[in-house]
């Protein structure tokens, strides 16, 4: 009885399923070559942007992706940001299993519409609408579709069809249709097939396509995204942002727009002006005045991210910052400019793309490529650069955040491309001197001082932002020596454009040396051992870009226990390669062993075939830094 019932029921199921099924994007339709190394395959991606006028860009996007494992899950998320100048509509999300059967279609209440919270922005109007579909059964496919309207033409975005490493693309298309009144410029990078341009009914149609693009694997020391992945940039010449019209046909006009936006916003209350003038009275050197005012800025303001409409571009009035004592990078740079104005020192506002490893801006494609503002004081040829958002930044130091890159200097005549200073290897130094007393059980008492300069100052910069309690905890975490006790420490630094900081440290390391039978092994490099060996690659595809540009030198004196004699001293090493230089040597004088080690890292771009040699260099220094002194009981 029961069996019959069951069969009937199962048949019923099958019939239902067959009727309900409509197959979409089955995984079996993906060419095998695209699956290789792929965490995800973008099956179809169509972007169409219609530029109606300088205040309206309508776009539609359809994105279909097959996810092969959990690491690519986010690629299938629907997550669109919008603000006062944009809107998102007609969104839909569908989830299919590997056979292509629809297993979920999102309903409107599945979508969440929230304020985009980045953790530190005090107030902005950014919102996001999202729904994050996924399945635990891999592979699965997600289809996302939406429309958006952007009511500005300052930034049109770009087309980046390959999202990441380990992502393949089956078919991606980008179409742009522009009105005759809104011509655009375009630039292709790494595109195998150039785009097409046709004119239909006085409208220009652009079209780019990327077909069957295999997944790339990430390798160490890669050059930036723009050197590897296909992409298309586009920008208008004349643009409009919140009613503020401008032109970016060249950097000069783009700079004029920024200048116009921020014109006459440097007015300070008279009381403040007189106070500032009184402060600098008697100082006849401009540099000292600038330093004093920079300190005033650091002591009296703090950084708060605030973005409201044109506020993304227009700074707060200096008078407002004077009252509230806070602002974002624009407001604080502008405020600093006002402080200098008050004592008749000229300065220029600068927009820049900040970030330690940010890819450089494309100087040949004038457009909105910036995310930060700083200040430049020409100071009669002895230029001073000021980062205005940091209360602890050494005076005149830009650091890895904005050093050595093109940026846009805003002048009365408009924008001008300039380059921020680069910190050279001779200044990026880390020198240490250490004295270590080793007892017969291998315990070590270390007393040392390390001096950090320029970019290497950033190795310990965070300590200057911490309370003493946090400093000590951080030190314990930083020290790679197990079982150590910090007896004493101190940090010091100057306040110069090339900062110099030092750390004094006194600690005991229990069982630093390892006893083994009648031997005692003592590692020669307790605090600054290099231990990174890049992975082995069967073949290297891309150029090797080395970014470190540093010079380290460590001098260590070990006082050895009297009960032991030296059995083995590490061999001296001296290697010099285009990627860097390494020298180490030790000498014994009675029971004192002195070890000097220096490492210079070279930056540069090297051909792919150099990879193995770079790896060999890293391997040699890692092994050399692991050397041990071998003592034997007398």
């Amino acid at each position, binding site marked *: 009885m029961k069996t019959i019932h069951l069969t009937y029921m199962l048949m019923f199921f099958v019939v239902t399923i067959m009727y309900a099924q409509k197959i979409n994007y089955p995984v079996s339709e993906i060419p095998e070559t695209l699956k290789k190394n*792929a965490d995800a395959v973008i099956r179809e991606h169509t972007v169409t942007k219609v530029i109606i006028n300088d205040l309206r860009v309508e776009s539609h996007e359809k994105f279909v992706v097959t996810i092969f494992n959990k690491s690519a899950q986010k690629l299938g998320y629907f997550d669109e940001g919008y603000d006062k100048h944009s809107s998102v509509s007609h969104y839909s999300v569908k989830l299919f299993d590997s056979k292509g059967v629809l297993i979920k279609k999102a309903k409107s209440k599945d979508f969440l519409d929230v*304020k985009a919270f980045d953790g530190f922005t005090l107030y902005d109007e950014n919102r996001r609408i999202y729904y994050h579909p996924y399945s635990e059964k891999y592979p699965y496919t997600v289809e996302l579709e939406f429309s958006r309207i952007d009511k500005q033409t300052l930034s049109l975005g770009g087309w980046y069809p390959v999202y990441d490493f380990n992502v393949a693309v089956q078919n991606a298309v980008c179409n742009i249709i522009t009105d005759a009144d809104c011509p655009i410029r375009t630039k292709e990078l790494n595109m195998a097939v150039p785009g097409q341009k046709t004119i239909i009914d006085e409208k220009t149609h652009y079209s780019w396509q990327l077909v069957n693009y295999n997944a790339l694997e990430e390798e160490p020391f890669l050059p930036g995204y723009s050197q590897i992945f296909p992409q298309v940039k586009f920008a208008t010449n004349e643009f409009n942002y919140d009613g503020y019209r401008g032109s970016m046909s060249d950097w000069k006009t783009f700079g004029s727009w920024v200048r116009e936006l921020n014109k006459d916003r440097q007015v300070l209350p008279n009381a403040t002006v007189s106070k500032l003038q009184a402060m600098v009275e008697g100082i006849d050197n401009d540099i000292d005045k600038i330093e004093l005012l920079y300190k005033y800025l650091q002591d009296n303001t703090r950084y708060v991210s605030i973005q409201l409409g044109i506020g993304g571009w227009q700074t707060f009035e200096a008078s407002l910052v004077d009252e509230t004592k806070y602002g974002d990078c624009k407001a604080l740079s502008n405020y600093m400019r006002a402080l200098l104005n008050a004592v008749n020192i000229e300065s220029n506002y600068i927009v820049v793309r900040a970030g330690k490893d940010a890819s450089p801006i494309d100087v040949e494609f004038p457009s909105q490529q910036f995310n930060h503002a700083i200040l430049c004081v020409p100071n009669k040829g002895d230029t001073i650069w000021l980062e205005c958002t940091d209360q602890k930044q050494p005076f005149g130091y830009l650091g890895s955040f904005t050093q050595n890159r093109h940026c846009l200097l805003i002048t009365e005549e408009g924008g001008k491309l300039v380059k921020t200073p680069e910190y050279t290897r001779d200044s990026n130094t880390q020198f240490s001197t250490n004295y270590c007393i080793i007892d017969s059980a291998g315990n070590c008492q270390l007393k040392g001082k390390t001096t950090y300069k320029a970019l290497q100052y950033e190795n310990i910069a965070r300590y200057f932002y911490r309370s003493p309690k946090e400093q000590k*905890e951080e030190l314990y975490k930083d020290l790679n020596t197990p079982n150590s006790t910090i007896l004493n420490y101190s940090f010091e630094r100057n306040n110069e454009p090339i900062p110099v900081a030092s750390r004094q440290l006194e600690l005991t390391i229990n069982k630093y040396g*390892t006893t*083994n*039978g009648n031997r005692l092994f003592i590692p020669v490099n307790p605090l600054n051992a290099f231990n990174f060996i890049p992975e082995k690659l069967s073949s290297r595809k891309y150029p090797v870009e080395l970014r470190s540009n540093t010079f380290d030198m460590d001098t260590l004196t070990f006082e050895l226990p009297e009960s032991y004699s030296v059995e083995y001293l590490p061999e001296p090493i001296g290697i010099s390669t285009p990627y860097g230089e390494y020298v180490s040597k030790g000498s014994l004088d009675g029971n004192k062993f002195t070890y000097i080690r220096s490492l210079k890292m070279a930056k540069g771009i090297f051909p792919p075939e150099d990879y193995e040699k770079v790896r060999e260099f890293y391997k040699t220094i*890692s092994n050399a830094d692991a050397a041990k002194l071998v003592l034997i009981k007398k």
Partner: protein
Amino acid sequence: MKKTHLFLALIAFLFVAISTIQAQKEPIKFGKISDEEWQLAVYEKDTAATAVVFCDYGVSDFIYSESQGFQIQFDRIQRIKIFKKEGYQWANGSFLISKKYDKVGKLKGVTYNQEGGKVVKTKLDNDQIFKEDYNKYFDVMKFEMPAVKEGSIIEVEYSITSESWDIDDWQFQTGIPTLHSEYRVSVPEYFYYKQLEKGFFPIGSKLANVRTTKQTGTVSNRTEGRVTQTNFQNYAFDYQVTDYMFISKDVPAFYTEEYITSRDNYISEIQFELGNVKWSNQPIKNYTTTWEAIAKLLLEDSDFGSRIDGGWAIKDEMAVVEALNTTPEAKVNAVFELVRGKMNWDGRNSIYSFDQGKAWKEGSGSSGDINLLLVAAFRRLNMEAYPVILSTRANGFVHPAQIIIDQFNYVIAAVKLSDKYILLDATDKNCPIGILPERCLNGQGRLISEKGGEWVDLKPLAANKKSYQFKIGIDAEGKLIGSVNEKYEGYAAIEQRVSLKYYTDDEAYLKEYQKNHSPFDMTLDSISWKADIPKPVLVSYQFESEDWIEKAGNLWMISPLLLGQRTTNPFKLEKRDYPVDYSFPHSTTHTVTFTIPDGFVVENLPETKKMILPERTASFMYSVQQTGNTIVVVSKFDINKVTFLPEEYADLKEFYNQVIAAQAKQIILKKL
């Protein structure tokens, strides 16, 4: 009480009765800053503090109006001094308000600075206050105090009127020291609230007293029937009010540490939950009072009780299970596999299921959707099954002495087999049946049954167990060549299965594994039983390293544990204020067999070591044996206890130090 709860300062509520709390002087007056407060430049008890709260004073009071009835008014004044720039963040404030029930009455703030011997005031302007959408139910009010410098004193005062009878919770502790924290709550006799005290630092003093108050007014009464009438009545009534006062002084800053379960477990706090409301001449309306009442309430809830009986959504599938399985064990297995196989957990924690049918149809839902369905499935098969509500590790501990339902955020299923409960959670694809995901391992859960329910232990029924076997040969140049078998069991297998999900193929997994273990080169043999829960996961691969052996003249030194060597101590700080929590026992075994090359003799071997902490809470066995030209190294590292109290910290730290020291000793070979 369970031992894991011992360190929490859970003290039975003893109030000191005093004559009148109402007449007590308020601890702070807005704008009245004392000379001592101005002079304080560093807080003696914590010189590292970047700012201090001088006073944080809150009052929750019931106010009565004819149109609204009772409403709660919450007032708060805070005075903070900023010592250092690192403390500027304390000048940024925010609080949540309910979209539906709350109204902000006032919000004002002043920053005080001393300039040239004079106090300069800067007011918080309206355009420095922002109301933002927080989520569906709440908005967040944010403000940034202006003109903040080192040495500034800031004051903020705000009040919220709420139509809901939720009394605000009060935290006595924050990231900076608090000199005086005071919370006053006045509750009319009609309301009864459960109070829950939490945290590591006990509340300093608790006072309570009762007073009588008088209310007069007019009330309109509409009666419905054949004729609608409205009666107006003048009234005057007396009722009693209980005033509570909670004060903590010199509360230390809460600094987070690693390996703690949840900040909320440790921060000093008082919480309130409405227990019942009783109007005169009306029956008592219970919200929560006893665990039995909570069980009843939940069982009557259409999003809880109704979800475990019926199970119509899965009646067809249950018929199949019933038909195909005979023993109860087989049925439990089949149901669990069915629900777990079909349902994807959407990551949300909940004790409720709002739409079970839809969840089942779409194969996706919250912990409530999935596990209440599991209970329903068992009940449909006439098995004894109950929901067990619990609080996840991230959500903090449940305090059985405090009957508050808001403590719970998650539900699992309990099914009775041979007179024993088996706890089941079908949200996790990788957990074997009967093994709870790590997030559920948090003290005790409450089983909800028609009989009132009971407490059940949420214990790890497996350990995190890993074993590694290396067979290594050494060639004449000092290159290591060999094969490795790794075995992951219990919670280690769960972790391993989760990480394998990040790779499409096994080679990609091993490639990434190798990146984290330079200088070893690995070639995959196989990964077995990836989906064969509850079997262990096995990983085997070939292994090579040119750079492992260190050479010093004619000596070769080999660190024997290869990639299993522990080189850093997770416990670096000198002392610890909060317990160390491992979630489950851990056991890691390494067995390494070396074959030494011709032309070499063993010069020295590391010592054998055996170390056991009191009561076997942790142990370490290490042995190195030579037979002919083979050397066998065995290292067994076990953590047998889950929670170590702060007083055990020093032992635990030293235990790790000794393990590191023992494993650091090298095998020394000498060239003949």
